[in-house]
């Protein structure tokens, strides 16, 4: 198992999934989502495998465990600020039945709702168009503040990358959320420790991220970002904590396929060849 030197959470022994039906369900769903995302990127011939796979479990828990979905009166909002991970979100929506699985071959093609980065004007299941990094948290804040003004109870989730937190606008938004005590917003940091040119630590170290956010008056929880139960627990606590904004730092692996299995050695970009894809899909199919 490849372990980021920063993440003590990841080095802890994790028990195998028990007979708990809900845990098994999420586990199965997340494997399907990974397979769907990989196929989609393979057909497109481009896309960010590493970032998509590191965030799949977060999206699985959000979509299937946490979010009040579209039919709800006061529905929740999901802002994928790290827009390059969008194949994972499209795959989540396909597995959920929101998007037609027939769209799988249209990622990054002309007039497709599945644009290379999320576009809300083309895909109804994209809440906010993103792509250039650092902007999503501000938009999420606006949506959260509007819900408060309107007396609506929906919650706003915003997923950012750890490398993305190098953007100044993240800290403008973090300052606002903390100073105003915005309670209906949860920030999730996909802490995969990697960015385009290398590790986050070597590029521009963010640590100690928890302390930084706490000093901006956020409640912060750190979890293993591939452990569904831990994510569920942290997200539930974040949602019910109305003292101010909550952040969850999810320690993840770039390219995470499963325990001990990493796609493309955790690279930011890069593609599988046919053999590599088949191997990965077979692994995901077998669930081991």
């Amino acid at each position: 198992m490849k372990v980021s030197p920063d993440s003590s959470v990841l080095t802890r022994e994790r028990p195998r999934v028990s007979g708990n039906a809900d845990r098994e369900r999420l586990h199965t769903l997340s494997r399907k989502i990974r397979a769907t995302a990989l196929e989609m990127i393979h057909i497109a011939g481009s896309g960010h495998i590493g970032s998509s796979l590191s965030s799949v479990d977060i999206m699985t828990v959000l979509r299937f465990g946490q979010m009040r979905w579209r039919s709800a009166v006061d529905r929740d909002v999901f802002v994928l600020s790290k827009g390059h991970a969008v194949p994972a979100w499209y795959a989540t929506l396909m597995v959920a039945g929101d998007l037609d699985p027939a769209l799988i071959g249209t990622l990054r093609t002309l007039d497709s709702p599945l644009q290379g980065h999320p576009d809300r004007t083309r895909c109804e299941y994209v809440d906010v168009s993103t792509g250039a990094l650092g902007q999503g948290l501000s938009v999420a804040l606006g949506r959260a503040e509007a819900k408060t003004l309107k007396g609506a109870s929906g919650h706003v989730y915003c997923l950012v990358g750890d490398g993305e937190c190098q953007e100044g606008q993240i800290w403008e938004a973090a300052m606002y959320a903390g100073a105003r005590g915005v309670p209906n917003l949860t920030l999730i940091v996909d802490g995969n420790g990697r960015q385009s040119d290398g590790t986050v630590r070597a590029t521009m170290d963010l640590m100690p991220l928890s302390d930084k956010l706490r000093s901006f008056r956020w409640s912060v929880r750190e979890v293993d970002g591939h452990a569904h139960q831990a994510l569920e627990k942290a997200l539930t606590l974040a949602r019910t904590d109305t003292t101010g904004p909550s952040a969850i730092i999810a320690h993840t692996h770039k390219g995470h396929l499963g325990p001990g299995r990493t796609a493309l050695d955790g690279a930011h970009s890069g593609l599988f060849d046919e053999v590599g894809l088949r191997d990965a899909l077979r692994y995901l199919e077998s669930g081991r």
Partner: protein
Amino acid sequence: MKATRDWFGETLVDIAGEHDEVVVVNCDLGSATKALRFRQEFPERFFECGIAEANSIGLASGLAQEGLRPFVSSFGHFLTGKFLEIFQSVGLNDAGVVLVGTHAGLAIGKDGPTQMGLRDLALMRTLPNVEIIHPADGVETRRALEHIAAHRRPTYLRLCRQPQREVHDESHRFEFGMPDVLCEGEDLAVFTMGGMVEVVLDSLEPLAEHGVRPTVVNQSSLPADREAVRALGRRHASVFVLEDHFVTGGVADEIGRILLELDRPPRFGVWGVPDYGQAAAPADLYARYRLDVPSVVEHLRAFTHRTPA
């Protein structure tokens, strides 16, 4: 005489009384942009972001996506400086944000080029779903705000710091994109917007002494209506555009592009700010950059009497 930023501050409060969805996002310059009156009247609808324009723009996008009509106000130069944020969080999201950029042109004077709205039009014109409005007086500011409150398109409202006299009467109707012909002349049509409208009107009397009687067009909103501009182009042998903005990228480029597509384009001339600007008293700047009344008279006289090449 009042500045359009003052009219904005007053009118927004009136409009917000009728439109619950109107909210304000402030970037610590509410006293200068005149947005602070709104805070007094509607404190719960006023979002102070501090000196953080990028976050203000993003936050406004989120507010708009939830059905509100946010007005983000700051100096136009500071707002449009966050172009990547406007491009994505407002433009690409098609979010109904109204960016209110005050202190257009050279008029900020002694604070100099780091505060001057001389490039804001050029930037905002590149976004295909954004309405740009730069009113010439109080009547037009009020009508424009009524227009803005009635729709949900991304909008850039460009406002002036300097007081402007009224060039419209109360019966004026604002029609987006339409060239607003303030005075019919002969041969030459002069297009401009905002604070320059009054300057052109004040040039008419001395110009008449030189035998120059231009049609004066207030092109207060962009994109301009193509057909209406073409019609004016056909009716005049020459067109001159004056702008209190960098000479590239503003209303001149818009009008020029439309006219060049005519089979027989009119003779075309432009005057605007050719550099970064500098710090000085507004009157000195307008004289130096040749955008005051004597200079406008001279530009139009010389252009009219120039022998075609």
